[in-house]
């Protein structure tokens, strides 16, 4: 069981490291904006977090696609 927990953590922080770090940064920005912006910020922090996460997912997957395309190209050569 500990091996599975370990592999999940490794997968989360190393395999998908960029995505995990990006998500943590998005969460930190959201927290900072909610605390600094006062009551008005509470109306939009959720939508802001959603937008940041969606952008993060698309950028991360685009990079994954570019890496995969490079591998296919080098394998075919």
């Amino acid at each position, binding site marked *: *069981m500990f091996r599975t927990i370990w592999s999940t953590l490794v*997968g989360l922080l190393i395999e*998908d490291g960029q995505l995990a770090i990006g*998500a943590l940064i998005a*969460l930190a920005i959201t927290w900072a904006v909610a605390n600094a912006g006062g009551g008005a910020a509470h109306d939009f922090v*959720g939508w802001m977090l959603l937008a940041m996460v969606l952008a993060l997912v698309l950028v991360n997957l685009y990079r994954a696609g570019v890496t*995969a395309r490079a591998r296919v190209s080098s394998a075919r050569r």
Partner: protein
Amino acid sequence: MDPVTLAIHATPAFVASAVEFVEATTIVLAVGVTRGWRAPIFGTVAATVTLAIIIATLGVAIVTIVPELLLKGVVGALLLLFGLRWLRKAVLRFAGIVAIHDEELIYLRELAELRAQGLRRKEFDWIGFLVAYKAVLLEGTEVAFIVIAFGAAGGTALTAATVGAIAAGVFVIALGAALRQPLTMVPENWLKFGVGAMLCSFGVFWFAEALGMTWPGDALSIPLIVVTFLAASWLAVRMLRALLPEGAQVEARRV
């Protein structure tokens, strides 16, 4: 409990738990078919009892002792981190970059491994017991996490999430017992796609609520967030398919 609350909290718990139960059922079936049913049934019961003890102590303590907003914040962050991992893998699977999860293949691999272990007819089959115990405990722990995560609001949400998970368990176990073969007809890859989107959506929802946000329509905004995640994922699949050369199937984990 009103039907809308039940649907919003029980449906994601049902779908996510069903995926975990299918994976556990595949292993238990493989043990039962190769080594007899006594040991895996004992293993499954022992794992269920262990899980019940873990949930009754740790789970209930977390939900009742930790302040609601702190719990929502921590659970929201964890849900988002795990959900993004699921969603990323699901998109990569559908784009053909990572191999599709194949329950039949996992079942056959497990059969071969168990047959290779050998079996002494007169002794209790500890290998079968431990394999089933481990599988049910591991997948069950994930189900427990899912229930706590989707029921983080406490009260009716926790009850609804528990009802969803139990219904998934009953459904999948009944299906497995009736068919006695891997549940390949369950569209696991599609379910994982949906579960990834739901985990991310609940993560965003809880985390923002923990910071003091009131969502328009409260929990009714969750389906809207889920649809947004699904739409972005569909866009990502199309983008990746367009990026890769025709017919390219890349099986690489670290992309």
